[in-house]
């Protein structure tokens, strides 16, 4: 039991299972396989975004511009589709991903080459990217009837009984597991966040690693932009407004340390799922939609408190009090 509680991922699995069981008590149909698959599908975009944010947070940075990046890439994808309905959808998706990567690399370059604190950079680009959407679209909406059927159908297309959106998120989870565990870049993310100075001495370029983390989060945000716009079949300036904090919350609940260096793909996945289950279950068990924000806020605080306790490392006796203040 003690071992179980020490493993953050196991703790989260237990918490999610307990949550689902509680919901099942009040509303049994929630736990049917079909509905759980729906909940997963609903959470897919958040999972993809949380994985990108995870890479950035691991390197001791933060990306507040992800939701704005998503909105801009999504808007561009929708506009391309509306202007040229004949263009193959994979090409549109690649364009959205490329745009997302470019927007992410702007963040990365500013952090890498100019040494501006990440929170300032992404706070700035967050407002700039949102403003650009307005300049591009003139504040107009792109509605379902302006998008081609193929554009809207792709994330919904069923493969082996599951929507493509779910499969896509599973593929990305797989890729991220390989990247984080089996590639030098993945290890570099951990090394840079764990101790930047030690990373330098082992031959890792800290700035460049952070740049790649931002490129990764940008690419995933671009992809999510297409997925979001096609799934909800509408694009406007304010889509996913405030979602950047949901993404960070998913990471934090998943045990990814905001101080960098600690975290895992499984953690980000479970953190996102935890939020997804809550968001999907509250309306079902007749909790007013107005209370949802308050409840997710409470959940974030509790999760952070639990995680922080697990994260405390033993220091030398003389420094214990100092470290208690550091958190």
């Amino acid at each position, binding site marked *: 039991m003690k071992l179980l509680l020490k493993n953050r991922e196991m703790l989260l699995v237990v918490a999610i299972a307990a949550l689902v069981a509680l919901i099942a008590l009040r509303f049994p149909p929630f736990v049917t396989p079909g509905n759980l698959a729906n909940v997963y599908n609903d959470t897919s975009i958040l999972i993809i975004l949380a994985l990108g944010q995870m890479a950035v947070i691991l390197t001791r940075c933060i990306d507040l511009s992800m939701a704005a990046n998503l909105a801009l890439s999504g808007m561009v994808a929708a506009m391309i589709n509306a202007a040229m309905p004949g263009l193959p959808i994979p090409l549109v998706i690649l364009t959205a991903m490329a745009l997302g990567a470019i927007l992410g690399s702007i963040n990365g370059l500013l952090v890498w080459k100019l040494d501006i604190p990440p929170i300032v950079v992404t706070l700035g680009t967050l*407002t700039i990217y949102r403003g650009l959407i307005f300049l591009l679209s003139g*504040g107009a909406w792109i509605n379902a009837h302006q998008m081609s059927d193929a554009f809207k159908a792709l994330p919904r297309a069923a493969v082996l009984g599951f929507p493509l959106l779910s499969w896509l998120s599973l593929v990305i989870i797989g890729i991220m597991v390989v990247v984080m565990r089996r590639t030098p870049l993945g290890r570099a993310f951990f090394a840079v966040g764990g101790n930047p100075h030690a990373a330098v001495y082992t031959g890792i370029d800290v700035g460049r690693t952070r740049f790649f983390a931002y490129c990764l989060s940008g690419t995933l945000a671009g992809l999510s932009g297409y997925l979001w716009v096609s799934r909800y079949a509408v694009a406007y300036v304010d889509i996913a407004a405030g979602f950047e904090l949901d993404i960070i*919350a998913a990471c934090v609940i998943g045990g990814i340390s905001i101080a960098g260096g600690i975290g895992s793909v499984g953690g980000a996945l479970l953190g996102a799922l935890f939020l997804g289950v809550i968001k999907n279950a509250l309306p079902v068990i007749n909790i007013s939609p*107005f209370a949802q924000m*308050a409840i997710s806020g*409470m959940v974030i605080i509790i999760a952070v408190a639990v995680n922080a306790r697990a994260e405390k490392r033993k220091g030398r006796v003389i420094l214990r009090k100092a470290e208690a203040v550091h958190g």
Partner: protein
Amino acid sequence: MAETQMVARHIPDRLEGRGARLVKSWETLLVAVALAIFLVNSLASPYFLDPWNLSDATFNFTEKAMIAFAMALVIISGEIDLSVASIIALTSTAMGYAVQLGFDTPALVMVGLATGLLCGAFNGLLVTGLGLPSIVVTIGTMSLFRGLSFVILGDKAFTGYPESFSWFGQGYVWWVFSFELCLFVVLAVIYGVVLHRTSFGRTVYAIGNNQTAALFSGVRVGRVKFVLFLLTGLMAAIASICLTARLGSTRPSIAMGWELEVVTMVVLGGVNILGGSGTIPGVVLAALIMGMVTFGFGLLNVPGIVMSIFIGLLLISVIALPILYRRFRGRRSH
């Protein structure tokens, strides 16, 4: 963000060397920017220089700047408070609820201030008591406080504030000088004195520069940080009183997104986001700049969201330029 202690400060608050003759300090740079925007505004529209017009322009920044003063102290101490806009919402909701119960103006103000202080105390307790990172705590309380307002209000709005209450947002102390503007000036002076002339201010810098060193030199780090979070709560409550009185109604979406604008204002004012440096005059200038930009774009009929592009660019460039300048100068001297 935990590397603050080890990595050199990124943002210079003073430029050194030969450039010092040209640009003496961050504040001088901000004054130049402010004057330039003022000039552009007055050339762009003949109505800009009208005193009543200028007075109206102050409403664009006074409420945010009140919070920015306290936020500056929090950020200098190495923490951040992202829940301020939600505290405004919850405070406004509490006052709206009190109005429905028939409270009068003095009682309303008390309810507002108490709510803000409670929210601040909650943040402070979580950060100092449990030792949690403030950026995460306040992301949580941001949804929590705003969520509570939604729970209480639903999709309704509270109105019916007493006539005397609206004075806080609409009243004028003398000629064109509104109550809000006067409060802004008074608070600027108080915060300037507290940060730059008292030992409390020095401990705030000390904590931001090296928390462990501050702890071992006898600074009660936890207590100081708790007070700082109380202060942001209090200032958010005061801003909420002004804003609610000005609008005359409470909606759960009130002051949405303000937290980022307040942080932008503080950083633009030259406060190091990693803690340890920054000044109140800088924040005052940044507030003036942001207020004038908003107003100038309004005069030119530029939509608000386009203005935000400008603020974003201003934020990044104003921090990037001194770094580029120093790098350029460094290369030439070799």
